[in-house]
């Protein structure tokens, strides 16, 4: 809990500086994690890299529900990238796909252009941050290769909680 608070304060600080410097909506979190390895720095061990935590806090934390969904989604993308076998990749892909459905249905629903753009951005940006080094990029696509040819069905009874 202590770690989480310290991390949140740190991330909030980054976001505030960014807001003052560039104005709302204009700044993108700096300091992407380029450390070697797939996991990067996850100081509170919540399954999300610190820079992605910062991204979510800054851009996808309009409500606790959206923030919570973005965090869950980010974890599934990380797990997907780290998958080493077809089974792992398939399972992670299913879970990541389910979270995509949730983001669309529950978190940012409707066909207004703002929500449409924002949910697309959320989904793409977290993948992009997760695969932000050559090593991670390459591994992300290796995981994708593992599920090439697979079929995933939308679960109509998906529970997004």
């Amino acid at each position, binding site marked *: 809990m202590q770690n989480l608070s310290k991390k949140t304060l740190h991330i909030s600080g980054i976001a505030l500086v960014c807001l003052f410097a560039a104005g709302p909506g204009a700044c993108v979190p700096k300091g992407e994690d380029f450390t070697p390895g797939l996991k990067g720095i996850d100081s509170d061990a919540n399954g999300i890299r610190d820079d992605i935590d910062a991204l979510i806090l800054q851009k996808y934390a309009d409500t606790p529900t959206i923030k919570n969904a973005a965090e869950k989604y980010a974890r599934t993308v990380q797990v997907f990238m780290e998958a080493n076998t077809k089974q792992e990749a398939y399972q992670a892909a299913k879970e990541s*796909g389910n979270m995509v459905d949730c983001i669309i249905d529950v978190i940012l629903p409707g066909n207004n252009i703002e929500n449409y753009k924002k949910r697309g951005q959320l989904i793409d940006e977290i993948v992009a941050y997760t695969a932000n080094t050559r090593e991670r990029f390459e591994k*992300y*696509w290796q995981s994708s290769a593992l599920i090439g*040819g697979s*079929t995933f069905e*939308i679960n109509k009874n998906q529970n997004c909680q």
Partner: protein
Amino acid sequence: MEKVFITLLILIFCSTSHAESNLCIDSPEAISVFHVNGISTTLQSARLNLKEISNNISNNSQINYRYHLSYNHTNTLIADLLQAATQVGLQFSSQVMLWMTGATGIPSWLQDILSNAMQGFYPVVANELQDHVDKYRDALLQGNKVLIVSHSQGNLYANEAYEMLLRQNPELPVRQSVGIYGVATPANNVAGNTGPYLTNNRDFISATPGALSANLILKYASGETVPAFGLGAFTLIQAHSFTDTYLSPAYNTRQSVLDGIQTRLTSLQKPAPSSGDGPITIALSWAGNVDIDLALYEPDGYFVSSRAGTAPGSAVFLPPAGHVGYISFDAESGPGIERYRSNCNQLQVGTYYLGAHYVMDLTYAHPPSEPWCASLIANGQALGYSELNKSYCGLEEDPMSQMTASATLTIHTPTEDQSLSMTWSPSAEIIYLMRPESFLMAAKLDVLEVTNSPDPNQNGKLRYVITPVNGLLPIPTAWQAVIATVL
């Protein structure tokens, strides 16, 4: 001298049973919509597109809609991209992936790689394609209309899949019940026809040699025409993007795509189910990183296995139709499930011997070639390719050990499900995977009465006995000769 120890364990959840019930009720109308993504599309982005489609197709409450993503991945593109990135000394960041999804500022070398790839310069991946075809066939066999909504290179997959279905299953109503709706297609046809499809006039894909031409002037939702590339805010990739352009509420493409899908759906005919989840369905499921094939004998002694590959006009490894039912498809690794569905109009009385074949342990980087080779020879001979023999296969000198494997065989009937576990537990000793011990039997199914056949939908009756069996499933005679040659 090798020692082979196989421990067969069948857990009997239910004792021998009898039942009588109605047969094979025709299911309500069902539609399976599959989305096939384009090249360089992330799994998450492809899922987003599928979900947007599913949320915006008008649903008829009398119809069961199912939405699937048929994911394709083109490894060659990423390899080329990484090689080029090394050459130009690219500093990786999140921006690289964002450029691939249409973000502005994309370097020209990356744009060239992506646009070349999207114009179809990378061929479809054969095993991915066959996986897709298997799923389409399975849906069709169950009486579902099948609509494939394909984007970009996914159109090449969809067209080939359609042709494969026609070729592999001429008995199925593919032309009537399977449709394609193409979006941003680099192909020169849609399932052999000139449409339906949608390509906007700002999409570079229509410049692909031979591609169907653009058929919609791209406009903002306000009605204003989107200016030519270079004058507006579009990147080359963005104008081609399913998410950013074709499905976006910001453009006129969205309604056109959704209307096109809806129209194509309406024009499809409901296929009569060739097989269904009743009266008898046999399901084999397993979780390990192994390949296991459902295998059984029908009452007339006909051997059906997901690896037998003897369907008329089939590719070598096409899961075959038996005389009484179909195997849905050949799942080649765990977690896998294969189903044998009885034909609604041809269920026969008699004895069915139900089991499975442990084909191979997939944890090896280079799996042993014996089973693959034996199948190849068996199928090759069946198809008249006499040149396929032991020397053709280039067999490994040394057989390898395999991991323990287990699977569950479930017999579904209208009144009950019986599950039987099968375990292949070799000791540390080496084993030849095509040895008789790799074929296990789980149960004997005696169908005693099928009334009103061949049309059991009309108040038909089914009476049967299931007897769990702990033993080996005989290898078909035709295979025995081949295996003797190989081993």
